[in-house]
């Protein structure tokens, strides 16, 4: 894909590089490598190392599995803009199986999957989108007559490593939200023992997927992961930490109602239930849709989509604190707390009155 820009005007044919069987302009390619270094939080000088690795290495085989999902991560991937999906993603990797976008269907499609699994055993990368239901033998998600669990065991089990894209494949996502009718879990839990990276988010950010693969190509290993298998470069900092509205937070300027003056001024969404302070994601720095915007920039609080079980624990999305378990939907922590304090005050008052009117006994000493 070419744009008529300053970049493309001054390019002679010698400044093209061959990536796989495609040619891209050297300039675009270096831009991509620099961007990847930035996403990976590496110094800019690493762009050269990355470029070398991508140019020299054979494109890894990648298969993309879809289970209980909404195809949002596929959508997110197709919307990759820097690099575009056609420009780089298909050049960095060799995408051999992806139900939604591949041409073959039925038996043919399944065959291309099995070809990769057999011929590239231990060398290919499995990308999984969607949760795996375990209840009732996994019947709630079957492809070509096989359960998701069965497929995942074979495909992820034989891969060099697995990248779980989107919250569903990381920890179950919305499919596993209370009451989790299908017993949905993430891939890491469904297929124990595999090497995997979690790239949660609803959907995942394609820049992070590309960066993870680029890291693998460049350094030969996976990026450093946290206890939830998420790479630190993408999930090491809270949304709150790098949020552009943070200054308003520290100042004490909060949106109090949708559309109020503060909202129009772009103040902090904390009181509207923004979960940025407890959510780890690089949204504020990498952003979305070609780095045009991200939820908070668009005026909506963070819903902690990349945090485990956010549908249950980050709820309500428009309230600061979760509901107190065991109490009605209307009761907030503060209402319960105030009620508790009032009940205590009333109890003490009654006690005081009781003491005043109870017959005087011959009392002795006490202590506290």
């Amino acid at each position: 894909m070419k744009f008529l820009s300053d970049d493309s005007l001054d390019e002679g044919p010698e400044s093209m590089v061959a990536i796989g069987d495609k040619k891209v302009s050297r300039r675009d390619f270096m831009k991509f490598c620099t961007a990847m270094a930035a996403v990976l939080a590496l110094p800019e000088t690493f762009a050269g190392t990355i470029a070398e690795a991508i140019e020299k290495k054979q494109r890894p085989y990648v298969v993309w599995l879809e289970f209980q999902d909404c195809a949002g991560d596929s959508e997110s991937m197709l919307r990759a803009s820097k690099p575009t999906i056609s420009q780089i993603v298909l050049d960095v990797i060799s995408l051999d199986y992806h139900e939604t976008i591949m041409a073959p269907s039925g038996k043919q499609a399944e065959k291309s999957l099995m070809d990769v699994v057999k011929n590239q055993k231990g060398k290919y990368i499995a990308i999984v989108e969607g949760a795996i239901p375990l209840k009732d033998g996994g019947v709630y998600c079957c492809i070509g007559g096989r359960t998701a669990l069965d497929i995942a065991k074979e495909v992820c089990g034989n891969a060099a490593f697995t990248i779980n894209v989107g919250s569903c494949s990381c920890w179950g996502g919305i499919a596993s939200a209370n009451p989790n009718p299908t017993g949905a879990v993430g891939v890491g839990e469904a297929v124990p023992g595999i090497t995997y990276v979690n790239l949660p988010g609803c959907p995942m950010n394609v820049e992070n997927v590309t960066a993870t693969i680029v890291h693998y190509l460049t350094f030969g290993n996976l990026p450093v992961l946290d206890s939830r298998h998420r790479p630190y470069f993408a999930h090491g900092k809270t949304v709150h930490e790098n949020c552009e509205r943070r200054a308003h937070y520290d100042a004490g300027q909060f949106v109090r109602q949708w559309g109020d003056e503060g909202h129009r001024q772009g103040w902090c969404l904390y009181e509207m239930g923004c979960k940025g302070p407890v959510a780890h994601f690089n949204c504020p720095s990498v952003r979305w849709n070609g780095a045009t915007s991200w939820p908070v920039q668009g005026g909506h609080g963070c819903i902690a989509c990349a945090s485990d079980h956010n549908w249950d624990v980050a709820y309500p999305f428009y309230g600061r604190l979760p509901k107190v378990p065991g109490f009605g939907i209307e009761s907030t922590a503060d209402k319960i707390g105030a009620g508790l304090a009032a009940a205590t005050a009333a109890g003490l008052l009654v006690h005081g009155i009781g003491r005043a009117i109870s017959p005087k006994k011959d009392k002795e000493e006490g202590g506290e």
Partner: protein
Amino acid sequence: MKYERGRVYTWEFPVRFTHWINFLCVLALSVTGYYVGRPFIHAYSSTQYIMGWMRFIHFVAAYAFLMSIIIRLYWSLVGNKHACICEWLPFTGEKLKRVADDIKCYLFLSKSSCHVGHTALGGLTYLLLFLVFLFEVFSGFALYSVNHSGVIWALLGGWLKSIMELSTIRLYHHLFMYVILVFAMVHVYIAWFSDSRDKTGLMGSIFTGYKFIAEKDMKQ
């Protein structure tokens, strides 16, 4: 009252000192913590730093509170017998019976008996309160560790994040403030109640350290 009373040095200086440090810390922590949970003052200009200061005070008070707890625990080891936190433990048959007696006496069902130190029920309350304090400290540092990575924060509370979700930690950190508030109300009321009933100088004792105990109860 008809008994001779002796002046007994009950609460040693570190006990009183940490009591009042705790009081100040809990007050500061509750006000600023409530603000962090529900910002009740709004800035009119972005050059203000209200949330910033609230959080700063909250963190400083949190450290002071932790130090106070550490001093108190140390004094539990080296102080007099009323300072020992073993006094709080109700796990003997005799102690449990005294807890029941104390409850009866607060409900006007029986006469009170006197103690130089804590009553059994009071001790049990402090044990529970201490656990609440510990939870507040750990959960507080767990929340703090979100933006401060390091071994210290991991030890002081970061480990909690592997057991509980952050938003759940935040909820309980907030809810227990109310438990402490309720405790404070009951604490002051009962102290006043016991003092005015038994005339042991209980209210003054947390300032001076001395209680006035009838001779016949001295052995306790």
